[in-house]
């Protein structure tokens, strides 16, 4: 059996954690805790982490954050990170706690928000299939859940923006924000989740978002993972979809020590549709991971994954894209596309497409490309007076344009376009 001395800090943390809450919860937490102590954080032997280095994390003596001192938070930094140019209902979560004082007072019509011990219907979200070390940690150390309910038939004109911040007030803390969205049938909403850090050394943010999408609901879900150099963010999004529901995921991941977004989508009932368009960017020694699992569990379901990565310096990207079509999920359509652009000789991009198909009447396709900037296109731009560096930026931006183009909403597209431009403009 492997030893996990590298993660002994976390194992100790889990061992000494006293599970609270109702008996069903305590039982699940203890179970996950024991499992974590046995397995530790994922290693490269696990497929989903084959190209991901977690050794730096293991060197930290990670601890749970102290209750955040709201008055000492850098409000200007928070305001900037909260995308002030975007009209939205804002909710601020710091170190896993919803801070009402920093959030919009007004709650949109048809919406209720509460932070409490997990509600009983959260139980099925605490035993995910194929749980990895991060999932186990999330369950073992689970404290409170921020539950956001959107009633039936609600159409929100403004998005709900949840700013999930790590304060860095406790050095090398592990914060575990847990958010549960229940979207009522026929409702149509846009939710943005921004994972941000307020210092350059904010430890590990191990975030979990669970979404129940009811019949015919449509959710536009934007996940923005924006780390700073010394931080690690592992954000997991798990979606359960009912009949005719429509999930449109958009993600932006900019590198840090580790920035990882995992999306698990289960199309549980017929006619459900899910798409995810992701762009991950990294430079220096940064790591970005995008892992997607779409499970077609019912007939006539559709999904598309369109993931892209731009990797510069000595950075690493990894994409794992899984499509699972269960035996009963006939007439499924699933598409998966992954594109990676390498901007330097030392950059690396890893892609692992994986299709598991148990039904016979399905249409599934996948494709992966890894490439560099086109030399002919570079010369074409330069021959028109555009300097080499600028030409590289123009082409890199062109590579990302497909991702931007998938965003319906103009205001949202402007925000993501600005994020991209500021990343491109940085050295």
């Amino acid at each position: 059996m492997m030893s996990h001395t590298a993660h002994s800090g976390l194992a100790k943390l889990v061992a000494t954690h006293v599970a609270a809450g109702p008996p069903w919860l305590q039982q699940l937490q203890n179970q996950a805790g024991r499992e974590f102590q046995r397995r530790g954080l994922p290693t490269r032997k696990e497929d989903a982490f084959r190209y991901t280095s977690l050794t730096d994390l293991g060197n930290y003596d990670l601890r749970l954050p102290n209750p955040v001192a709201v008055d000492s938070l850098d409000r200007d930094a928070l305001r900037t990170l909260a995308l002030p140019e975007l009209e939205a209902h804002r909710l601020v979560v710091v170190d896993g706690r919803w801070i009402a004082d920093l959030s919009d007072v007004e709650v949109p019509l048809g919406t209720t928000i509460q932070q409490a011990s997990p509600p009983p219907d959260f139980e099925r979200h605490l035993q995910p299939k194929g749980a990895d070390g991060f999932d186990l940690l999330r369950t073992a150390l689970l404290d409170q859940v921020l539950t956001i309910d959107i009633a039936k038939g609600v159409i929100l004109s403004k998005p709900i923006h949840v700013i999930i911040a790590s304060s860095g007030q406790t050095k090398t803390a592990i914060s575990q924000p847990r958010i549960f969205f229940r979207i009522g049938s026929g409702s149509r909403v846009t939710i943005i989740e921004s994972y941000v850090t307020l210092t350059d050394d904010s430890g590990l943010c191990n975030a979990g978002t669970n979404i129940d999408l009811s019949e015919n609901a449509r959710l536009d879900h934007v996940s923005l993972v924006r780390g700073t150099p010394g931080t690690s963010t592992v954000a997991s999004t798990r979606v359960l979809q009912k009949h005719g529901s429509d999930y449109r995921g958009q993600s932006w991941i900019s590198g840090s020590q580790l920035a990882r977004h995992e999306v698990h989508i289960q199309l549980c009932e017929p006619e459900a549709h899910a798409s995810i368009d992701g762009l991950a960017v990294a430079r220096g020694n940064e790591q970005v991971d995008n892992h997607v699992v779409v499970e077609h569990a019912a007939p006539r379901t559709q999904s598309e994954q369109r993931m892209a990565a731009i990797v510069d310096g000595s950075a690493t990207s990894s994409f794992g894209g899984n499509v699972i079509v269960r035996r009963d999920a006939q007439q499924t359509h699933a598409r998966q596309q992954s594109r990676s652009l390498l901007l330097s000789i030392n950059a690396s991009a890893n892609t692992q497409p994986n299709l598991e198909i148990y039904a016979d009447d399905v249409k599934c396709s996948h494709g992966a490309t890894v490439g560099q900037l086109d030399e002919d296109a570079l010369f074409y731009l330069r021959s028109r007076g555009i300097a080499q560096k600028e030409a590289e930026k123009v082409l890199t931006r062109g590579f990302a344009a497909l991702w931007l183009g998938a965003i319906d909403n103009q205001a949202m597209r402007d925000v993501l376009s600005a994020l991209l431009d500021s990343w491109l403009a940085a050295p």
Partner: protein
Amino acid sequence: MSSTLTLQPVLEVKNLHASVNGTPILRGINLTLEPGKVHAIMGPNGSGKSTLANVLAGRPGYDVTGGTVNFLGEDLLPLAPEDRARAGVFLAFQYPTEIPGVSNAQFLKAALNAIRQHRGQEKLDAFDFLALVKDKMAALGMSPKLLERPVNEGFSGGEKKRNEILQMTVLEPTLAVLDETDSGLDIDALRVVSEGVNALRSSGRSFLVVTHYQRLLSYIVPDRVHVLAGGRIVRSGDASLALELEEKGYGWLEDQNEAAA
């Protein structure tokens, strides 16, 4: 600079040798192009016409192995492609490159502003840029919709060539090198493109028109015609040389060339 009345040549190529992938293609080109003149470079396939065009634009992979090229009295060869463009050299590509994800408008505006900045002019904002470019597109019979499309992506052959001429009219070079701009054009497109070129002819602008066929030169009437064969200029003459070539083909010149060598 010069105190005499002799005009300084726009382009002065002396004994130019160049290789592609280690294979010598140009074997001693000599060429002088005065301001306001149009010179045509003709010749059979493989004679080095396109290589000459690409060498002048500074395309990577086209290695100059000997000789000199002066542009407005300055050595052109050490300059990066973008610096040549800013100094006033323009190449209309034989095969314009498709650039997914970059709109034609974005591309043209970036190019124009890079060149304006070099000339010490203010950058144009989106509004002024559009006003400028839409007029020029109309003159070339181009749909304004092509501005929003990715550069050359899904353009027809004719649209690509018009797009090259559009860039030339927007960037206003001192030396325009047209590399087989007539290839793939039907007769109507050929007329429109030629009119676009002719409208730009002026005392301050010179053209090097590379073509395989005489056809284009009925529309863009050159001051001089040079025939390239085996990487050398084997014959030069006035516009009537093009007609002679049309009649006799290139064979007789190549035979002469071999005999001379």
